[in-house]
C-alpha cells in the first residue's frame, strides 16, 4: 500500500510536468500557425516612383521577404469608368507603382516603424502605409495571450517540480539505509541505485503513456466530436507521434536527475 502510494505520488508529479511539456508543444504549434496566419494577412503598402523587385525591397530592410505589384490598370478601372482608352493609357503611364510587401515574421510595432523609416530613406519611394494602429492592437493581444499561457505552463512546471523534490525526499529516507549498507559492503553507485533507477524508469514510461493517451484521446475522439471550429480546424496540432519521444526524453531526464540527487545525498554512512 505504502509502496503503491509512493509510486502514485511520483507518477502524478511526473504527469503534471509532462502535461506542462505537452501543453507547451501544443500551444507553440497552435500559436505558430496563428502567427503565420497573421503574418500572411498583413502587408505594407508602398508607393514608388520606379518599378522594383523583391530583392531591392529586401536590400532596404531584411524583414521584407515578398513583394507583389498592384495592378495599376485595375486601380484606374475601379475608380474611373467613363474614360477613353487613350486617356486611360496616359493616366496609367503617369501613375506611380504600388506594391504590397510581406514580412518574414509577425514582428513588434517598433520594428514595423523601422521598416517604414528604412523604406522612406529611398528618395524614389513616395509613400509607405503600415496600417500601424490595427496591427498594434492585434499584435498586443496576441502577445498577451502567448505570455499568459507561458506563465501558466511555467507555474504548473515549477509546482510539479517541487512535488518531485518532495517525493525524492521521501525516497531518500525510504532507501537511505539500504544504499548506505550496500555502500559499506563495497557496492558501486550503479549497484546501490539500481532499484531506484528501475522504479523511476518504470514510472517515467507509465507517466509518458498516460499523458500520450490523454492527448491522443483529445485529438482523435474529443476534438472530432467537439464541433468547435478552432479545435476541429487545428486538431492535428493537438498531438503528434514525435511528442512521445519528447515526453519520454523529458521524463527520463527528470527521473535520472532525481535518482542521482537521491544517491549522492545519501552518500556516506550515518549512525
Amino acid at each position: 500500500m505504502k509502496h503503491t502510494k509512493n509510486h502514485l505520488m511520483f507518477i502524478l508529479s511526473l504527469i503534471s510536468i509532462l502535461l506542462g511539456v505537452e501543453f507547451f508543444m501544443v500551444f507553440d504549434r497552435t500559436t505558430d500557425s496563428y502567427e503565420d496566419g497573421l503574418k500572411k494577412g498583413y502587408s505594407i503598402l508602398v508607393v514608388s516612383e520606379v518599378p522594383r523587385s523583391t530583392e531591392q525591397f529586401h536590400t532596404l530592410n531584411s524583414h521584407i521577404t515578398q513583394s507583389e505589384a498592384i495592378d495599376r490598370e485595375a486601380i484606374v478601372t475601379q475608380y474611373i469608368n467613363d474614360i477613353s482608352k487613350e486617356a486611360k493609357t496616359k493616366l496609367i503611364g503617369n501613375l506611380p507603382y504600388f506594391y504590397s510587401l510581406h514580412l518574414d515574421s509577425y514582428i513588434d510595432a517598433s520594428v514595423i516603424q523601422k521598416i517604414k523609416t528604412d523604406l522612406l530613406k529611398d528618395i524614389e519611394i513616395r509613400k509607405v502605409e503600415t496600417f500601424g494602429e490595427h496591427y498594434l492592437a492585434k499584435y498586443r493581444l496576441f502577445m498577451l495571450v502567448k505570455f499568459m499561457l507561458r506563465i501558466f505552463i511555467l507555474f504548473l512546471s515549477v509546482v510539479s517540480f517541487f512535488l518531485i523534490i518532495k517525493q525524492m525526499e521521501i525516497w531518500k529516507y525510504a532507501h537511505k539505509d539500504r544504499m548506505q549498507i550496500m555502500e559499506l559492503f563495497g557496492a558501486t553507485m550503479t549497484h546501490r541505485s539500481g532499484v531506484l533507477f528501475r522504479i523511476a524508469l518504470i514510472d517515467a514510461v507509465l507517466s509518458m503513456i498516460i499523458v500520450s493517451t490523454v492527448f491522443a484521446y483529445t485529438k482523435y475522439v474529443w476534438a472530432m466530436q467537439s464541433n468547435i471550429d478552432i479545435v476541429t480546424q487545428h486538431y492535428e496540432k493537438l498531438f503528434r507521434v514525435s511528442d512521445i519521444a519528447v515526453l519520454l526524453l523529458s521524463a527520463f531526464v527528470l527521473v535520472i536527475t532525481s535518482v542521482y540527487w537521491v544517491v549522492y545525498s545519501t552518500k556516506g554512512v550515518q549512525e
Partner: protein
Amino acid sequence: MPNMITASHLTLAYQNEKGYNEVIKNASFAIRKGEFIFITGPSGSGKSTLLKSLYGEMKPIHGTLHINGADMTNISSGRLQKLRTELGIIFQNYRLINEWTIAKNIVLPLIIAGYNQEIQNAQANRLLRHIKLSELADRYPLELSGGEQQRVGLARAISKNPVIILADEPTGNLDKNSSNVIWDLLESACLQFGSTIIVVTHKIPELFSLPYRHFIIEGKGIYETH
C-alpha cells in the same frame, strides 16, 4: 604472519567550526593476519571512530594507516570499494536491509560481487544452518529478535570469507544468552576462515577460549595490555 593492518602515528579527528577535535592521537600498532583483537575503552573514547577509519568511513588527519595493502590516508573511491568487498562488518544496531528477507540479507556481499543465484542460495542455506535460523529464511529483519538479527548480521559479515571482520559492539544490545551465541560464532569464523577479527566492546567475554590481543583506548592513545 604478515601484517594485515598497520598504523603509524595515527591521528583521527572530527572537524568542527573551531578546527579539529582529536579523538585518537599519535597511535601506532600492527595487527597480523588471523589475529583476534579486542578493543576496549570507556564510552566516547574513540573505539567506534577507530573502527570507522578501518572501513574507510573516516580518513586519518596525521600518520599512516594501511589495511590489507591499501593506504587509507590517500585511498581512491574505487580502491575503497574493492577493500570493502574484502571486509565483513558487524554493527551494534545490526544494520540489516529491512525490505529484504533474511536469506537475501546474508548474501549481500555475494550479490555485490556478482555471484549467480545458485551460489547465493547455497551459501545462504549453509549459513542459515550455521546460525541455526534455517526456518526463518523468508522472514524479514523486523520480524526477528535482536539476538536473531545479530546472528544474521554476523552471517552476512562472513558470507564471502572476508580477510578482516570488524565488529562494533556486536553484543551491545543483546542479553547474555544471545551474546554467548555471537561470541561462539565469531570464534568459529576465526578458526574456520582464518580471518583477522577486530571487535570493539565494553567488556571481553569471560568464557572466550581463543588466544587474543587486547588494545585499550584511553586519553586519545591506544595501548596494548599484556
